[in-house]
């Protein structure tokens, strides 16, 4: 198992990746549920059988097979030609999608976007530390930034720069972004989407279908601010939509119960839709530390 540590100096200045967080991340490991395919020999099993130290099986020799793969000891014992097969380990590619729409700018210390950026940076660090590759796509109504997969320090540095410069943009069109990015993902891997998913739920899962079909493992991190869920406050307030600028006047105390019920229904629908399609779904509140997401996610993976 090859694990490369990221030098402390490489993460010291990043806004979303503090040295203390890096230290804490040492105890975490990010691994896909499915097998991944890769160019470089890595720690992840690949469906392709190849050169490796991990013996898998024998099969009869066929003309054209590499003579080096013939198990001479078996030939000596049985006078038959058998070829040794090994399980090949390969690199994992994690495709990170970070929602940078206007609604992600909601919330104080941190906003949903900041919270998601912390999480994205930590996840990127974990992946790169494992010599796996990670790509990053920032989207709102379309794809704002796409960094192809990479696992170098420079790559990591580039991602951190992008995250730091990132700010909440326009209206959320996750489904549109997923469709646009799909051709750019050449290798199967893990698609991690961090968003508030304030888009049409059927459209989102419709767009995810193509990723599932391609064999990607999908993980959805649903980030919401507590205020979005609880709707605290008294007296009439004019709520202004951060994306459409539509205004609604309401007294939170009068509508709170109904609102909570409606949000819960939304969350239930998201979870149910994800479960139906075999997609990992993790819900996150910005008032909890993002490390808990790792705890939660990895605990779940262990169960799986």
């Amino acid at each position, binding site marked *: 198992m090859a694990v490369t540590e990221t030098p402390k100096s490489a993460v010291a200045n990043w806004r979303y990746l503090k040295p203390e967080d890096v230290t804490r991340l040492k105890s975490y490991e990010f691994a896909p549920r499915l097998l991944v395919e890769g160019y470089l020999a890595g720690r992840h099993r690949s469906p392709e059988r190849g050169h490796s130290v991990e013996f898998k099986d024998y099969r009869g020799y066929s003309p054209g097979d590499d003579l080096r793969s013939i198990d001479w000891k078996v030939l000596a014992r049985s006078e038959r030609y058998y070829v040794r097969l090994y399980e090949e380990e390969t690199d994992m590619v994690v495709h990170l999608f970070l929602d940078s729409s206007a*609604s*992600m700018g*909601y919330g104080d210390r941190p906003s*949903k976007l900041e919270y998601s950026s912390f999480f994205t940076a930590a996840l990127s660090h974990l992946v790169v530390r494992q010599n796996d590759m990670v790509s990053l796509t920032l989207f709102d109504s379309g794809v704002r930034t796409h960094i192809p997969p990479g696992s170098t320090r420079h790559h990591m540095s580039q991602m951190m720069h992008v995250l730091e410069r990132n700010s909440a943009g326009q209206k959320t069109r996750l489904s549109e972004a997923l469709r646009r990015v799909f051709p750019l993902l050449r290798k199967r891997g893990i698609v991690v989407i961090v968003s*508030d998913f*304030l888009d049409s739920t059927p459209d989102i899962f419709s767009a995810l279908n193509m990723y599932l079909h391609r064999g990607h493992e999908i993980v959805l991190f649903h980030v919401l*601010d507590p205020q*979005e869920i609880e709707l605290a406050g*008294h*007296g*009439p*307030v*004019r*709520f*202004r*939509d*951060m*994306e*459409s600028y*539509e*205004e*609604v*006047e*309401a*007294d939170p*105390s*009068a*509508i*709170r*119960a*109904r*609102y909570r019920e*409606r*949000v819960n229904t*939304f969350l239930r629908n998201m979870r149910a839709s994800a479960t139906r399609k075999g997609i990992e779904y993790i819900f996150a509140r910005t008032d909890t530390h993002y490390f808990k997401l790792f705890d939660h996610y990895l605990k779940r993976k262990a169960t799986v």
Partner: protein
Amino acid sequence: MGMFSITMPWLLPLTMLAALPVIIHLLAKRKPPRKPFPDVRFLNEIARVVQRFEKPRDLLLILLRTGALLALLAAFSLPIYYPRGRILSVTGARDAVIIVDRSMSMQYAPGGLRRFDQALARSKNIVDGLPAGSRVDVVWLDATSKAFTGKPTENMAAVRNELDRGEVTCGKGNPASALRTAVKVLEDQSRAREVYIVSDFQATNWRGVDIDSIMPRGINVICVDVDNKVAGNKAVVSLNVTPSTALAGETITISARIANYSSEPGSVSVLVKSEGFRRQEDVYVSAWGEAEALWNAIAAASGDQVVEVGITRDDLSTDDHRCFTVRVKPSLRVALAGESAGSNYIEDALNALVERGAGDEKTSRISVPVMVEKVGDAGEADTRVWDLLVICDKARLKLLETAKYEGAIVLVDEEGEPYNIPLSDGRNVMVGAAVGGKRSRNVAEGRGFHLSGGEDEILKVFTGGVSGDPSLPTIFGYRDMKTPEGTSTVLFYQDAKHTPALIRAGLKDGRVIYVWNIALSPERSNFAGSNTFLPLIAEIAMRCKTPLESRTLAPGASPSCRVPAEADTSAVAVKRPDGSSYKPSLAMEGESLAAALEPMNIPGVYTVLSGDLTIAQFTCNPWPEESDLRNAVPGGGKSTVVVPASVSLSAAREGVPFWPYLLGAAIVLLGLENLAVTLLRRKRGAGE
């Protein structure tokens, strides 16, 4: 429509303070702070539903607060409510007429209190409430509609006394007449004029009465309603006895109609009684319908026989009982004048009616008491009244003009010359009659006479309702008579010409003359020996029965009767139906003394007595129209004001202080507002 009057109008501008809650609401309503939110679609969905309830709640609170304030401010202005308008808006003395309904429907007494008593009480209230110096008169609304004084008087005590003495009648009311009387009373008065109508406004009396057309301009009409409610009533609405003048022993038919003026059908127990006759039976009467009951009784003795029909008493008891006076004559009085070939047979037949009755025992059940007298030439001085005058000799034809009779039979000579019978109305009964001088053949062939009357009526030769073929033996002898115009052939021969056998001529005064064209002597005819002869004579005699003057009268009638010579004139008295009695005025009428009764206003029997001797019995019955207690809408005129029964006159005149109601309303509204606020707070608390 009711109206309000404000005692303290200068406080009215303060009602503008009612806008205070709205202003406070608008001022207190802060513009809510704007707050960015990631996605308002959920809020939008919910807020739309919630606002649907929230806004009306806010509106309700404002309305409650505004209403409470308004009611409070209005209460301080001390308003007075006039339920039916301010009927005494004219201040100062006035001339007034109070029309008080005393028709029979005013006797309706639900719960024991008569409508008439309520009317009197309300009338006295009117008198008491008139301003000082006013003058007033009372007009009784009944069949006659008489005024008390004829001119408005300031003597209120006399007016009150007149009201105290007033009594309800059993007659009908004539509103138009009463209104005209009131107009007449007020016509020369120059002050403010008012007519108060205190009535139950019974539909049968008031329908079609146009107050505006009767009342001239300048007279205010105030309709004061008395118990104008839908009231059910059952009544005996008619009682009839036929014949109304009967002979002693004659069968009389009593028919009574029972009406149900209510929406509930049911059985009514009907009791009928007369002299020696009493029956009771249940009669089913449908809702708003009528039923008829019939009985047969025997006219017992001569004199006045009272038949009474009654039903179970209800709240209007006056019409639950009806009476009828049947005039019973001891016998028919027949005068026989002159002689002829057939006169003996007529005389024998008439006498036979007395002895044997008409017909044999199997076919006839009647016995006609007849008193036959032979008369000579009756002069003007002869005052005897005959039921039937039989003239057997054309020399006595003058009797047709001089004698007093109800019906006459003129026998045509069997062998004589044709003659005319001149009638008093200028007609001749028989014109150019040709008397056959020879025996004729049997033309009837045993089938007898056809019996016909004026309107194809079959003459009932046999009593008991049997009519038709008397199976006559052959008839010999007839005359070729032509029926003159204006007469009808009662009997005719079965020949080709339908030769008249008995001609009936009606005089204009109602009397009847029969021209007899049937040979009676045995050599010419055997009709006198046939079994048709006696019934025919009996029938004619009964039809000629002189009707006596009816003693069944409508309310208000003032009848009179002859006091017989044997009566003690000093002891003549009239006993009213209620048991009281009075002495009638006696006066000579011709050669006899007559007692004149006062107007009959109590339903029942008025008996004229002289000691133990009953001279006459008069019956008075209520008007059937008065039994239908359905009411019309009072007033109807443009200038009329209606004070309903539920509104007291003082309230209509002085109004009802309305401020306590407004104060109460303000308290209730504030209480509701408080409750609404508490509930809303509690609900908001639960929501958090």
